[in-house]
């Protein structure tokens, strides 16, 4: 017998995808990442900046970097000026 899927009371609540996660970044004086999670940055492919939602209680002031690490992996990290912390997000 098949269980009634609607009967389940443990249905998960909506989940945000690709949530930024804190990451350890060492940056130079110009703010450009030198290493991410203790892995050296081989190349910064691009930098972009986002200023948004400044009129709300959750303003966004971020500096993004698309990096290639020395092991060849690609990673987007950003510095969140509001939270004063580095976060990583899948590209």
């Amino acid at each position, binding site marked *: 017998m098949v269980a009634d899927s609607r009967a389940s009371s443990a249905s998960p609540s909506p989940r945000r995808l690709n949530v930024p996660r804190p990451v350890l970044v060492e940056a130079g004086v110009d703010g450009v990442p030198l290493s991410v999670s203790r892995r050296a940055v081989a190349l910064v*492919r*691009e*930098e*972009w*900046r*986002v*200023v*948004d*939602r*400044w*009129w*709300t*209680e959750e*303003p966004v002031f971020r500096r*993004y970097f*698309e990096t290639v690490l020395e092991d060849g992996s690609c990673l987007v990290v950003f510095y969140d000026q509001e939270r004063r912390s580095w976060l990583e997000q899948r590209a």
Partner: protein
Amino acid sequence: MARAAGLTYVELHCHSAYSFLDGASQPEELAARAAELGYEAIALTDHDGLYGSLELAHAAKALGLRPITGAEVTLADGSHVTLLVESRRGYANLCRLLTRAHAGTRPKEGREPLPPALPLEALMELREGLVCLSGCARRGLAVRDPSAAAQLARAFGRERFYVELQRPYERGDARRNAALRDLAQALGVSTVATGNVHAHRPCRAFLQDALVAIRQRSPLEACEQERRGNHECVLMAPAQAKERFPDDPDAVARTAFLAEQLEYDLTCELGYRYPDFSTDSEPAEARLRRICERAFVERYPASDKALREKARSRLEEELRLICELGLAGFFCLHHEVLELAREVAEEVRGPGSPRRALPPGRGRGSSVGSIVCYLTGLSHVDPVAADLSLGRFLNREMASCPDIDLDFPRDIRERLIVRVIERYGRERAALVASFSTYHARGAIRDLGKALGLPGAEIEQLARLTEGDPRRVGEELASLPDGRRKLASRRWRALAWLCAEIADLPRHVSQHPGGMVVSSQPLVELVPVQPAAMAGRQICQWDKDSCADAGFLKIDLLGLGMLSAVEECMELIARTRGEAIDLSRIPLDDPAVYEEIQRADTVGAFQIESRAQMQSLLRTRPQSLDDLTVQVALVRPGPIQGGAVHPYIARRARRRRDPSYKPPIDHPLLAEPLRETLGVVVFQDQVLEVAMALAGFTVGEAEGLRRAMSRKRSREALEAYRERFLAGAQARGVDPATASRVYDALAAFSGFGFPKSHAAAFALLAYQSAWLRRYYPAEFLCALLNAQPMGFYPPASLVRDAERRAVRVLPPDVNRSAAACSVEEGAVRIGLAYVQGVGKEEAEALAAGQPYADIRDLAQRSAVAEDTLRTLVEAGACDCLGQPRRALLWQLGLVPRPQAVPGSGGRAHQLALPLQPVTETPELLEETPWERLLADYRTMGLSLGPHPLALLRFQLPAGAVASAELDRLQHDQRVAVAGLVVARQRPATAKGVVFVLLEDEHGLVNLVLPPPVYERYRALARGEPLLLAYGRLEKVGRGRSVVVDRLESLGPLAQKAAGLAASPRPLPQAHDFG
């Protein structure tokens, strides 16, 4: 180009607020910031226009920067290219291109304009003297259509076409710029770096986001795509350019090389010439003399030898001066425009009109002081007989053309503007632009919507605001829930964004009547674009820029009172068969002056306002000369200059003691200030004082006056102070006196009338008062038809006339014309006065008269059913012999012709000839309150009882009517109630607010001291019915109530009317600054 110091960057792509909602800084702010950052040149490239170019050019040059003229042009496919001017030919081409881009933006009158669009072929054809950059990162031609960019590159050649690289710090910059570099290489052209600037400082980048939202008419949240995503659109320091373009140092360095190539200087190479009017056989000077001599014989008959001699010497002096200044063509042009106006007036007035004898218009302003203007028909005041000075209008040291302002009745002006454009050609004549700038209300509404704030709360704040966007934060804080609001970022953002947006231009519109005419194509001097009204076109510069460019501006102004006076004469001729010649009425009629002295002047030109009334009671004018002073006295200049109270006091003293000599600051001022009792009332006296006390030449003095009247010349005013003080000292005037006099002149600033202007206005003020006195019904009718104009809403004009025994009749579908008319000595309200009835609909309704019943009316007229309902509610169908509610019931049952689906309203099905099968039930009559509110809702005025007459017996004990104030004592406590007619918070009154209340007997002036106003601001600004408690102040014959407590009569009216909410349709008061 900043290379000597190791800097190698010039900004070549920069938007100011003249990109209209896509740029957050004034040109002056950009220039000042660029100078601060160490630039040596800067380009202004607003969207599809040169609106701010001259402003930037002058501001930049004053700061030692080299201005570069250009524009970002929208092509037909919506993509952008940046055009920069290299030479005079290039500037002319850019103007022609922008004119072309705008040519199709107004296909239909009354609709929103379409975006400008320039065909690529036109750009390739008119490319000479221009440098083309391939456009911005988002909508640049090279990004959107590389093959079209290649076409342009071939047309312009490698010396004049560059691929534009931008680095807005958006994701994808690297890939886009790599593609653009490849394109440049493939085309064999170079790249150049630009910043696509939209703000001069980072704080304005927030405003730029909000402007995008306003442009998109959406909240900030909903226009993420259109916003820039970050705040990198700010003018950067030249040194930062290298960091921003690390892979393109050559593209950065090239900006400076290119800037050197762009040599054109807009401030001195425009080459404008106004029409000369010289022919081979007759130079312009001879033509002007011929015109003057012809009129001289008529105007100055040999019988008055003394006047004639005086006039002859004045004419010779003026003609000599005009010849020296090379201004004969200027006067001939004005004369020709006036001749055109005469033709237009004949057409508009029609044959047999009593208006035929009137001149087509009349002069105002300083030109009224010129005998040449008098003889050429440009003014109607004899400057010799009236002893008017010429200095301000015309003098040997003039740096620009004199101003001639001409007033016309509106109907003549409408057609004259189009006729002037037709006469001189669409390439040579256009109206001057005017830029609507942000004030508090507009700022609160637009920014509030952008920030997603609740509409009702925004509207509440917008209604309460005083008008200064910089004070919105304080006003927000003073709201009952201000603290809660300011705890939220959105409301805080509203407060500071309002301060930032203050005075920025929002859109372009037309100047009230300024036109420029040029002998060479105007479209090569400034872009020209269609105006909102069909047949009109405007140039892209405002009056200041046109003056800076040396353009000859003719002011053809529409004056509501002239329209009203002319209509009044027609009505008198039609209804009484009397032909009035206003030039022959007695100018010393005691009955007219008696009314003026009593301040019984509602509706009279210039002397009807609350402040004028208060002043009239004390100055008590007795002649046209007194009226001339009176008209000029209640102006911001004399008020700020501290002239009003001394003048009034000295005049009272002189009345008591004719030998009284008013005190003066220095004996040198005795003559210039003789006729105004020792104070500065007229603008020309500023010149005369500067000449008498500080030894200024007439040209220097006129320069001082101009500096005072222009928004861009605060520094210049300070420079004049030093010269004034030095000049006065040289004449033995002590520094303290000189300084005091200069301060009074500076406070007077530009906000005063020249005596000649005041004289012209005083004459019209007297004529209107005379018509009001002897033909009150015709005068009221004409005023109602000339609305909007004047100080009072139509409701108050009607109440005032009723108090003076004029009968006013309601609109009537069987008797009213479209406009208001005079019917057996009474004023009949016209059908077009009913809300929602357009002029054409009203005319069609009147043409179909008479109507037998409501069914006949509904079936024979094409008026919408809603409008018919409004006509019933306004009482226009009372003549059909049924109560209003019964008419409404029957209206709902009348079968009406229906539009055939798909015909676009052109074809109609005939109505079935069915008779209603049900009887009209018994319906209750409306109450007086319901009628009153329906009147205000449908017409904005009421002919029934005044709301205060309905409320009077329910007012608290002790509340007195306006008619009772005369018998009460000065300083006695009183309570007065009324309908708010006007509110005024003059900048000159140090925060005091004046409210004019109207009750069933007349008007009461309320004075709200600043603390009282602050406490009751919401009531004072928002409530239509007020009860005011305070102290009666009686000064001379003036009476006011100095208020200490205010209450709303809304709840009482609500109860009396049996309504669920406060009565809303009561007319809104007029607000004055």
